[in-house]
């Protein structure tokens, strides 16, 4: 009995690998835009800022099915952009693993932005001014002062996004369905097993696996954060 808890079927391993792939690509996809939007929200005032803020945070408060459905409307094969992408480039997003990446990216984006924004807003503007007075242009200031000093928070955001992506269910199943080997990620696989007779054991296996991954992610994030915090000095303040 205990043995069977650790013997994975090919389908289960496929779900695990797919989940990891989707989460990695999702994290890579939102890293740069996430930091950029976080910087805009933390440092700049511009027309439409609160609107941008609301739109970014919408997926946090909406039922996940809603963003999934909206993605279908926009990027689906008959969607505004989806149709164009298909006709011009022959790219299909809906009901593919790429779509799963997009769906979880939309859901994970606000977590990334929130964390990075908080970190950036805690970087002392005085240090940025000092860098400017030393001859650094705005890009150099960001790259050499703001970014390294907010790195712990940005890493936290990326780990949160990665974990959110691993656990994404609602938007994914709405936008890309539940296709074995293509879009059936861990949570979708668990759900599927709970819906069939005799699926409890494989479901339990995947549940344990999910928990192990979650614990590993949290531990890695803890280590990374501590490392980053040590690298940027004792505190973000200068005294």
């Amino acid at each position: 009995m205990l043995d069977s808890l650790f013997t994975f079927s090919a389908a289960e391993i496929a779900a695990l690998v797919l989940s990891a792939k989707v989460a990695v690509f999702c994290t890579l996809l939102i890293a740069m835009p996430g930091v950029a939007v976080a910087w805009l929200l933390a440092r700049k005032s511009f027309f439409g800022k609160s609107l941008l803020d609301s739109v970014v945070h919408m997926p946090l408060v909406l039922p996940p099915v809603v963003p999934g459905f909206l993605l279908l409307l926009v990027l689906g094969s008959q969607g505004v952009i989806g149709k164009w992408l298909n006709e011009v480039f022959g790219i299909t997003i809906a009901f593919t693993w790429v779509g799963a990446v997009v769906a979880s990216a939309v859901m994970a984006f606000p977590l990334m932005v929130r964390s990075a924004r908080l970190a950036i807003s805690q970087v002392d503007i005085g240090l940025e001014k000092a860098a400017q007075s030393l001859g650094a242009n705005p890009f150099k200031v960001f790259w050499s002062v703001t970014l390294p000093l907010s790195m712990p928070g940005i890493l936290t955001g990326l780990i949160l996004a990665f974990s959110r992506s691993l656990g994404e269910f609602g938007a994914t199943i709405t936008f890309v369905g539940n296709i074995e080997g293509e879009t059936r990620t861990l949570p979708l696989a668990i759900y599927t097993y709970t819906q069939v007779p005799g699926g409890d054991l494989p479901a339990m296996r995947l549940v344990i696996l999910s928990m192990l991954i979650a614990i590993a992610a949290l531990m890695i994030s803890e280590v990374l954060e501590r490392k980053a915090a040590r690298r940027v000095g004792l505190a973000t303040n200068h005294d």
Partner: protein
Amino acid sequence: MIELNLQRRRGAFEMQVNATLNAAVSGLFGPSGAGKSSLLGMIAGFIRPDSGSLVIDGICLFHHEKNRPEKNIDVPIHQRRIGMVFQESRLFPHLSVEDNLAYGYKLLPAKDRRFEFNQIVELLELGRLLAQKPHQLSGGEKQRVALGRALLTSPRLLLLDEPLASLDVRLKHQILPFLRRVKNEINIPMVYVSHAIDEILYLTNHVAIIDHGELLGAGQFHEVMQDPRVLTLAHSLGLENVMHVEVASHSVQDGYTIATLGANLGTNSGGGLGSQQLHMPLVEVVVGKTVSVSVAASNIALSTHPLSGVTIQNQLYGVVKDISHVGMRVLVSIDVGSVLIAEITAKALQDLRIVPGKGIYCLIKTQSLRPLALSN
């Protein structure tokens, strides 16, 4: 040479600065909230003036005319080449001292570098600290690194915004000599902001006084002090006269120090007057060292003859240079080897027939002399 003509209005606060500073070090002095930091911010480019112009050594960094927008210039902060040292050192916490120092140096094209990296490191004695992180440094060390970091960008002008304000007296004493070393060995004009006049006078006699956003005057300290508005301000600070004197001896038991006021000691040449002695409250300064003492104009009495049988210890002989009327006050400036301003009544002026060129004795009680905190 720094040519300032800057205006800025925010709510009820109006900045109005029009001056030319051409000293090696100009002290910018004024009470808190006077607009000292705002002025520095406008020079550095952090704060945008409403109108005016800023020209440093013939290079225009800012120009704004309402009617001729095509003539406007606003050089971005990072291209102004104006070094800044802040009250809080603002060292980059994630970089070592060496990387902090090299930050601006590396951004500067080699042809624009006026100093070698090691030259500044040696000048400020930073070699021992290079591998450390800012959080391992003391307050004074941090400011030295911040100073070196700014100098290494070979700035056109170095702005020091109360760089010693967060340090205790002991640390101030440790860092001021470095500032003087920089002044003497490195030819970069500096504007030194402080509300501690003794710090400023340690470095320079050239001051600009600012209050309520307005520059009240700029020039030699004793000249600026004669401006009635400056005098009013200085009056509240008890700082109308500052003399640089050399400690001659101490009388610890009786609680006083005797110092010499020599013609060549003060920065203002006194025409051929011999050195005179000054009794002042006891200061803990080694004999032979120079100290600055201040005395309010209202604490100086004048006499046409030396007096005997009075308790007043100090009778400094000098020559009347100038007489000015400020409202109800009469101010007489007298060269005693250093220029003193005495406040007397209009009646006394008439009775004693005080006119420029006349020799006169300045009577100053020992206890009305206030030694300024820093020795040279």
